Every structure is written in C-alpha cells, then in structure tokens.
C-alpha cells in the first residue's frame, strides 16, 4: 500500500543543533588545513634556506636556460635536411653502440637483481619465513641495498674492479636486489595461505610448498615488478657513465662539460626516445601479463 507522506520540517531547535554541529565540523577541518599550511610554510622556509634557494638568480638567469636550449638545438634546414641530420648525428655508430651497451647493462642488472631478490624474498616475507631473526636480518640487508644509491655502489666498485660496464651492471644488480626483494616480499605476504596450508598438511617439503603453493600466486606480479624495474634501470644505466661505469653517460657528460652543444641534444634525444619506447613496451607487456593471467 502506497502512502504519500508530506515531509515535515525538523523542529527548529533540532535543526539549529544540527546546523551548529555542521558549522563546527567545517570550522574544525578549516583549522586543520590552516595549521597544516602553516607547518608547510615553515618547513619550506627552512628547506629553502638549507638548499640556498635564490629565486632572483633563477629569474635573472632564466634567459641562460632558454639560450642553452636554443644552443643545443641542431641547425636543421628543410633544404638540406638529410645533410643536416647526418651532421647532427655524426657520431651515430659509436652512440648507437653505447646505447646498446646501456640497454644490455640495464637488462643484465635487472636480471641478476631479480634473481637475487627472488632468492631473498621468501626469507624476508613474514608469512613463509622460517626464522624471525633471519627475516629481520634479510630485511635490513635489503634496506641497505636499496637505500644506498646505485651510483655510490658504482663509485666504490670502480675502484675495486676497474672502469667498465661490468661495474655498472654489478651496481645496478645490487640496488635492484634491494628494491625488488622488498616488493617481492610484499607480494608474498599478501598471498592466500590456504594452498600453503594444504600442501604442508599433505606432507610437502619447503621447496615443494614454495614451488606449488606460493609461486603460482606471485609469478605474474614478480614479472610485472621486474619489468617496471627494467624501465627504471634503463634510466639509471644511462648515467652510470658519469662515474666511469659504462654506457652512454660518459659521452653525454663529456659533451655537456665541453659544450659540444649539438652532441648534447643528439645524445639526449637518443636517450629520451629509447626510454619512452621501453616505457611503452613494458607497459603493454605488463597489461598483457596481468590481464592474461588473472
């Protein structure tokens, strides 16, 4: 049975109380926002002092930035496009070889790091780790590997192993072990434990449990994180040459320091295009992977 009931307005005292409560809540949230902003301003002031921020220098020299961009842009003319391009990319055989070296460094560093992270992640995941002390130690070790930047490892390794791309690979691999080990361990901690319990109940050993109960649940995520890391490592490998650890970075550093303007833009464009292509490629692959396996 349908009843049409007219809306009765609230009694004035109730309405007033509710309105007051609402105003109070709004005022409280406003106060919080202002307090947060005040803290932010104070912190900004301190940070600006520490970082020697000088906006007037930036404003005064911003012309230099645009000049620099204008200078590194190559002289390309429509009439002689082929010739100009050839002059711009005069060093292309060497640069392409170095770029290939950079990509191989990133690949090998990611692969070795992923293997390291894979081996350590089960010991660092709280739900499948066998000993609490081991779990703590492995976690701290991973934290160390990921907090010390790869360039710092490269600096130390260059002294120990000598110059060359092998050093860059090792530095990338150690940093990647730390980063991926942590992400992998988080994935393992989020699995459904029922398959693990049933395999343990059926008498499976540790390796068998990990292989048949844990691995099928985590593999797609592992590969996805590995691809993401590869993308980051390509960028990282690009600057390894700054400390003599191989790749295209050395050439770029020389070009920037010696003001070989056209070379700077040529190498930068190469790096940017490569990174963007790999971004797109790995993104597709990851969507495909996660979509296909779920």
């Amino acid at each position, binding site marked *: 049975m349908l009843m049409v009931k007219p809306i009765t307005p609230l009694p004035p005292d109730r309405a007033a109380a509710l309105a007051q409560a609402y105003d109070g809540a709004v005022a409280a949230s406003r106060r919080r926002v202002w307090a947060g902003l005040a803290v*932010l301003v104070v912190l900004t002031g301190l*940070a600006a*002092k520490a970082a020697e921020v000088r906006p007037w220098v930036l404003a005064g020299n911003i012309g230099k*930035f645009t000049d620099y961009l204008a200078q590194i842009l190559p002289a390309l003319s429509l009439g002689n496009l082929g010739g100009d391009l050839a002059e711009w990319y005069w060093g292309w055989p060497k640069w392409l070889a170095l770029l290939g*070296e950079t990509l*191989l460094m990133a690949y090998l560093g990611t692969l070795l790091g992923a293997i390291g992270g894979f081996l350590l992640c089960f010991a660092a995941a709280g739900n499948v780790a066998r000993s609490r002390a081991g779990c703590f130690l492995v976690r701290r070790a991973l934290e160390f590997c990921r907090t010390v*930047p790869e360039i710092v490892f490269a600096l130390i390794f260059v*002294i*120990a192993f000598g110059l060359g791309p092998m050093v860059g690979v090792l530095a990338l691999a150690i940093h990647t072990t730390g980063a991926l080990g942590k992400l992998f361990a988080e994935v393992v901690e989020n699995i459904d434990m029922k398959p693990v319990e049933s395999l343990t109940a059926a008498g499976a050993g540790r390796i068998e449990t990990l292989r048949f109960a844990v691995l099928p649940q985590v593999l797609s995520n592992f590969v996805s994180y590995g691809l993401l890391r590869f993308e980051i490592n390509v960028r990282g490998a690009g600057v390894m040459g700054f400390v003599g650890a191989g790749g295209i970075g050395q050439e770029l550093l020389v070009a920037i320091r010696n003001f070989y303007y056209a070379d700077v833009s040529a190498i930068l464009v190469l790096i940017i295009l490569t990174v963007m292509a790999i971004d797109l490629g790995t993104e597709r692959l990851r969507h495909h992977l996660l979509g296909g396996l779920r």
Partner: protein
Amino acid sequence: MTPREPAMTPRDLNPAEIAALRQRYPGAFRSARGPRLLAGLAVAGLLALAGDAMVRLDFSVIRLLAGLGRLGEFSLMLLPPDPAGQAWTFLRALAETLGIAFIGTLAAALLAFPMAFLAARNVVPNPFVHFTLRRGLDVMRSVDVLIWALIWINVVGLGPFAGALAIACADFGALGKLFSEAVETVDAKAGEGVSASGGAELHRIRFGLIPAVLPVLGSQVLYFFESNTRSATIIGIVGAGGIGQYLTELIRVLELRQVAFLILMILVTVAAIDAVSTRLRRALIGGASRQGRNLIGLNV
C-alpha cells in the same frame, strides 16, 4: 560403490574412477607440455641474452675475483665508522640534502597539480592536448635527475639550488603523469551530481574532482619526497650540492671510515623519513574516510 576404509589414499582410486574423473574435469588433466615448453624456451632465451650481454660487457671471472678480494679489504677499512672531526660539516650537508629534496618535491608538486587536470581526459577531452601534454611529461621524466642537474648548473651555477631545480624538473614529469592518471580514475558520479545541479565546469572540478583526488595526490607526493631524499644524496656527484659531494670525494680518496659514517647517517635519515611519511600517508588516506563517516553520522 564398495565400502571403503576411512583413511583413503590416492592409491585407492581404481583406473575406472580415474577415467571418470578425467572425463568430468578435463581441464585438470590437460597436458602441460605446451605451456611448459613455451616457458622453457622463454627462460632459455632470457639466459642466452644474458650470456651474450656478459660477453659483450667484458665480464671476466679473474677481474671479478680480484675485485671481490679488494672489496673484502675495503669492507675491513670501513670499520669503525668515524667522522674524523667533520661530523658538523656532514650534518649541515645532510640538512642541505633534505632541503634539496623538500624544495624539489614541493615545486614539482605545485607545478604538476594544474597539469594533472590539463592532461586528464575527463577534464580536457581534446585528444591533441592530451597527447601533447602527456608526451611532454614523458620527455621531462625520461631525462635523469643527474642530467637535469648538469643542465641547471649551467643556469644557476654550482650548488644545492641547481639540485633542487633538477629534482623539480624530473619529478614534474613523473608526478604530472601520476596525478593525471589519478584524476582520470576518479568516480565520475560526484562530478555529474555537481553538473546536474547547475554547477559550471570549474565547480565540477573544485567540488567533484579535487576532494576525491587530494588524499591520493598527497600520498604520492609524500612517497616521492621519500625517494627524493635518496636521489638528493647523489646529486652532489655532479656538483649540485648535498651530501653527495663529500661522499664522492671521500670514496675517491678511499677515506672509507668517513664514508661508512656518511652512509650510516643517510640510512638513519631515510629510515626516519620513511617512518614519518608512512604514518602521514596512513593519516591522509584514513582521514578522508573518517571524514566521510562523520558526514554520514551527521546526516543520520
């Protein structure tokens, strides 16, 4: 069915039962040979590429072993960590590093905030604008922080300011992309409600989009601040301020006990910032839902 012993083992199944099961669940009995072969091939391909890469990159066991020996010596030289009377200098450099990370992240976030809406498809539907802005952000993002630092040193001179600008530029690209993706995935209902009750486009953005994305953006900015404290430690390698300058010099002259002290300082600082920002992030995202609950409580 014949009566059975209560303890059943797989051996008790007779072939007829297995055949019946096979018929009922063909998926579980499917041969895994095809996928396994494919996986094996993929792994073999990856390993072959790795081997080729090792040859091309001059991996040598002798160098590796000699280097490991030297690394062993170095690790003995690391202990005990010792500032050698420079603790105060190092602390100031650390403060500079934090300043660089903070200013860089803040500037990047402020620049990326308007960009988030301009590069989001549900705010500016023009595909040309979307494509141009997104690719522009991609370009900023694909240039490493160290390269940005080298470029900014040409403009504002050596020092931490160049480092802050470098971080701001690299992160502007990354945050702009993440922000605009966050704006694109917002539930459209709130915005539609604002439009339906007569709100203009700007009202829709202010009351329909911003409240929904702000906690997400805030937590992303905090996350970037964390990771920037790490990248700010190395920016001194090219002369753009912070603790990296000392780190580079001391490593080059093998003053490893001071290096160990510096690394310890960095580890402690990064761990502290991690802890603070994790709590802030939780408060930010939890706070939003609590506010929502309050509002519902008020209405009932």
